[in-house]
């Protein structure tokens, strides 16, 4: 089938299949799944600029369903998500401007590809090690051992704010905005919702319980992906018909993922998440190797 907005010829059933995979990851781990969907859409023949914009659009749909279900389970800290969004939107804009500079210097693919692969491998290693140690200690706790915010007192910059849903009595507003800003930069630079970084940062830096981190991340992804969709539409990078096809599978997958999350507890959930960013990094390096860095 030829899609008239991107003029790409893509098999609709393959789009639905990718949607199922991405939706399952979204429901299970609270990530958008862009590190898997992006390379797959590119391999099917969707131009790279449409991959970034269209993937963001489909994230709005899958994210909204998964976030709704997590909210029903009490896993969404709306106050935390809204405060993070302040930082995220600023970060997205900064990231998008950095991309423009790299594009002007004809270095976008090589630099962005290598940076994101390094980030993906780093996240995988850190999450994998921490969760493996927690499992070895026999911990069934939904929280990481001790958050960095609790360990390092210099992170307690005023004003402090409490997040009862996450069980955080007093935490720096600046730290929360910084988490949003950092993930926003990556989202603007590399596309996707940035959940592969936000989810571990919520758990390890702020000390949010894993299940609340998953739900809150999804809620935040909906807001930042919505903003990104409008922004990329202005640049002609969104094929909404492809996004709608992806979301048919995505809704099914999200339902399956949020059902599955009940059976996998704290450290095991983090361990199951660990290899996924590395997989995305490997796919990216493979694509770069075959399509070149320019």
């Amino acid at each position, binding site marked *: 089938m030829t899609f008239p907005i991107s003029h790409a010829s893509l098999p609709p059933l393959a789009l639905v299949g990718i949607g199922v995979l991405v939706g399952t990851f979204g429901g299970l781990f609270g990530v958008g799944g862009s590190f898997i969907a992006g390379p797959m859409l590119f391999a099917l023949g969707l131009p790279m600029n449409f991959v970034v914009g269209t993937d963001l659009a489909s994230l709005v749909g899958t994210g909204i369903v998964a976030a709704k279900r997590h909210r029903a389970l009490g896993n969404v800290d709306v106050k935390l998500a809204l405060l993070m969004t302040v930082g995220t939107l600023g970060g997205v804009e900064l990231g998008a401007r950095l991309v423009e500079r790299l594009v002007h210097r004809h270095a976008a693919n090589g630099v962005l590809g290598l940076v994101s692969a390094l980030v993906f491998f780093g996240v995988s290693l850190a999450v994998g090690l921490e969760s493996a140690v927690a499992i070895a200690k026999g911990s069934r706790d939904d929280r990481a051992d001790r958050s960095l915010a609790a360990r390092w007192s210099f992170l307690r910059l005023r004003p402090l704010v409490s997040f009862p849903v996450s069980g955080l009595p007093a935490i720096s507003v600046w730290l929360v905005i910084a988490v949003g800003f950092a993930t926003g930069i990556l989202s603007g630079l590399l596309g996707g919702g940035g959940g592969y970084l936000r989810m571990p940062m919520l758990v390890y830096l702020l000390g949010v319980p894993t299940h609340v981190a998953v739900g809150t991340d999804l809620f935040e992804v909906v807001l930042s992906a919505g903003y990104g969709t*409008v922004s990329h539409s202005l640049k002609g990078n969104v094929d*909404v018909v492809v996004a709608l096809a992806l979301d048919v599978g995505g809704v099914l997958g999200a339902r399956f993922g949020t059902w599955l999350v009940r059976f996998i507890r704290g450290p095991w959930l983090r361990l199951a998440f660990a290899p996924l960013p590395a997989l995305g990094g490997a796919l990216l390096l493979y694509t770069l190797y075959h399509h070149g860095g320019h």
Partner: protein
Amino acid sequence: MVQRAGGAGFAIDRRPAQLGRAVAVIAYLALTVLYARYGLAYFAASLASLARRHPLGYGFAAVALVAGQAIALEQLLAALFELAG
């Protein structure tokens, strides 16, 4: 099927709600088939035209469409699961 709410002391007949939901699901599926056969190409062409002429409006329409479709599909799935018991 009449189900009794535990401890509340009154009966709730759920048949009308289930029948209504079944009709809604069948109507939704029939409309989807008709739309895929006759309306999808026209719909996609209209969106392509909107994207060229009014990119900002297209952006907001894109967000509304993906969000609306996702919520409608989720409701449909929930109804199907409930009907399946």
